[in-house]
């Protein structure tokens, strides 16, 4: 990061870390073409940087096999227009993106089977948080960071633990995660990430107007959010269901080691292999005996 001139940061100076979904499998099946998407998104980055001179945009590509930083407005300081078509920094972003995709492709091992595979959201989220931690440590003067996920790929359940850890660490460092889902279904990860961290989640209905959604909702800096009305979800149902039958349950057994939930007593945890002590029947009969004695 180039050292920013030591100016006083106002409360509306933002650092937006954008996680850009570059999963080729998603984009080959999406109704919105990747070039259209980039057109909206690049204009949006430009708009954020124009909103406040001190604003900063960092872009991390969320690939299929890897993730990487592809843009940082603090080091790409050239704001001029290249032959009138787009700002120089946009073309440098595209350049980096191309290089990233080549590397990402090289890492591929075999064709994915079945449904569309998820992109490496946990990785890019962690990178974003690391970057923000570095900014926090850079001194008392820093912009207010937030994360914006632009994602279309389906959730990757195998990343659950890593993603939830990242979400909780964002919550602890008070970094809101905004999310804009441009895929076919909605993403439970993104909903939860925004919900837990106090960010905004939105799923645009009309992708041709993506830029308008981005500007209306996601350009709002954290300070202005205290008085600007943004869309809010009606509420997310985070009730648990058991690991064994996937039924929604009100009461169940929880593994004290890994927090797996079961509707019935098991001898051994199917998730972490811990052996559960004291059979339930023994405990019950012991308490039965106790209960019988007073006979009130």
């Amino acid at each position, binding site marked *: 990061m180039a050292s920013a001139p030591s100016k006083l940061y106002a409360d509306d100076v933002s650092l937006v870390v954008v996680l850009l979904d570059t999963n080729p499998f998603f984009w080959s099946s999406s109704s919105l073409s990747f070039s259209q998407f980039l057109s909206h998104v690049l204009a949006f980055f430009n708009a954020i940087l124009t909103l406040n001179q001190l604003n900063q945009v960092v872009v991390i590509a969320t690939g299929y096999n890897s993730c990487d930083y592809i843009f940082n407005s603090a080091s790409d300081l050239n704001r001029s227009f290249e032959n009138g078509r787009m700002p120089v920094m946009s073309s440098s972003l595209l350049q980096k993106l191309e290089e990233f995709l080549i590397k990402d492709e090289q890492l591929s091992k075999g064709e994915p089977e079945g449904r569309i595979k998820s992109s490496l959201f946990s990785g890019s989220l962690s990178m974003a948080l690391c970057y923000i931690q570095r900014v926090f440590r850079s001194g008392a003067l820093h912009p207010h960071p937030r994360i914006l996920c632009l994602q279309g790929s389906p959730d990757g359940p195998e990343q659950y633990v890593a993603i939830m850890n990242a979400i909780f660490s964002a919550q602890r460092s008070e970094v809101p995660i905004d999310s804009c889902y441009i895929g076919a279904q909605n993403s439970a990860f993104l909903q939860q990430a925004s919900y837990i961290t*106090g960010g*905004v989640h939105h799923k645009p209905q009309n992708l*041709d107007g993506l830029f308008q959604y981005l500007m*209306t909702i996601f350009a709002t800096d954290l300070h202005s959010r205290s008085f600007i009305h943004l869309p809010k979800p009606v509420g997310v149902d985070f009730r648990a269901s058991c690991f064994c039958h996937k039924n929604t349950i009100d009461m169940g057994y929880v593994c004290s080691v890994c927090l797996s939930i079961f509707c019935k007593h098991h001898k051994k945890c199917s*998730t972490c292999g811990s052996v559960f002590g004291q059979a339930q029947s023994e405990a019950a009969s012991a308490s039965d005996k106790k209960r019988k004695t007073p006979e009130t």
Partner: protein
Amino acid sequence: MASGHVTKRAKYKTTIKDPGTPGTLRMTLEKILFVPHNPKSAGKLDVEFRYIKGQKHTKEGSNKPPWLNLTNNQNGSFIFEFENYSDLHDCRDFVGKVLAKSGEVSEKPTVAYPDEQLSAAEMELRIKLLQEDSELQKLHKQFVLSGVLTEAEFWATRKKLLDREASKKTKQRLGFKSAMVSDIKPSTDGRTNKVTFNLTPEIILQIFAEKPAVHRAFLTYVPNKISERNFWTKYFRAEYLHSTKNSIAAAAEAAEDEELAVFLKQDDILASEARRKIRRVDPTLDMEADEGDDYTHLPDHGIFRDGNKEMTESQNELYKRTLSQDINRHAAVVLEGRAVDAEFEDTKAVAEALAQSKRESSNKGESDGDTSRERIERLSRMTEIEDLQGSNNLPLAPLCIKDPRDYFDSQQANALRTSGDALGGTEQIKSSLSIPEVYSSLRESISSIKAMGWKEPIVKPEVAYQVFDALTNSISNTKHNIGKNPQESVLDRLPRKTKEELLHSWTSILELLKHFWASYPITTSYLYAKVNRLKDAMSNIYPQLEEIKGSVPSELRHQVSLLVRPMYQALDAAIQHYEASMQKRSTQSGEKPNGYV
């Protein structure tokens, strides 16, 4: 019982030992009236119910007669002896009902004690807990006074609360005064030059605590070598010499008087303690760096005491004591708090008690050999760079999770279900393209935008208008969704009353469910009856929830029903369980209607 009064023959007793005046006890919703059979007898009573705070009664089967003890709000009590326990129980239930009602007006909690003999202290504690926690009080009123739960059942689930309260009883200790000992000013008689110091054990304790050398001297010299009076006279002489800041005079007097010298010299106990403390200072702290901050020696700087500038002289260091030393020592002692608690009459006792407490505390944590090792350990802890260290080798088994996808399925399936997006849709049609194909199509997109530049315009005005319109519309439609604080919960957007009702419904439901599920498996007729009581109470909650839903404006109704839905589900689950187990019971053992397994 539904009638508004109850009349029983009883004896009115002013104390437990009082044989009692026979007469008629009549209780209405407002009053308690006692009319003795003998009109001349003095035991006539006419008390309004609002003065009654609680009731106690004897237990059937205990060898005590049926007594009912009504306590009033002045801690007085009225004791009635009944002819039999059924009369007593009628009256007890009546009082309970009236108190429950009046509790709604006056916020005094009432504690009724069926089936339990409690000590006064236990009762006090329960009343205190209820008074301090309005939610607890509400629950108590709602379930205990209405008979859904007994007093014992209610508290049985809160034993921890009772225990913790009891153990917390150690009372706050009085600390040292923050005034300095040196601020004790003598009184003069106005004629002679004689001054008189008034020393209280309190002041003496403080002097001993702040000046361990004085304390030690007192223990060694008084009364064998010098009298106590003499001791303090010398002490104040020394204090006077200090205040004159004439360290030469102080040195001269100290040379002549051994005991006086003790007071004038630097406190050696303090000095060695200070050295020990320095050894324990965070080893990474650079104290030399702070030395530059000391500018008291510069002109126009320094501390003034009693109007005089404190001068730093180089000679007679031994007899010099600075104000900052005094203040620091005083502050340390005040912060340490007093180890000696009791009230003392004489100085000797004070001195010995302090010595005793010091021995105890030094026995606890003082083996000097350890400190150097401890210091090295600390040093390595402070300078260690966490990221570069291996794991701490804790004796823990590593967590190995076979398949994290289970967590996702367990939790997030619901989230997607409610947000109206089909989860099954995740099984999207796989694109027919191969890896190189998908990547190259992605790169083509990039090349095309590089060549063509941004789409012009980025958004068509009519599309932008549509989006903006739709967003604004959805935001204003859910205007209750909007709060100043984006983190604000749904509850905060509801009217205050609704919010409170909802929260209270939850706590009452949880209370009932806790007791309900804890009663299974049903092994006694007692539990059987309890479960029936709880089931009835739970059924009564349904209309209440409907009422809450009905009471809110239509645009909030959806929000409220979302909040109420899990309450219904929890209640439904319990009632379903109840009915299923009832059915099983009736088919299994029809001949045992009482519910024994």
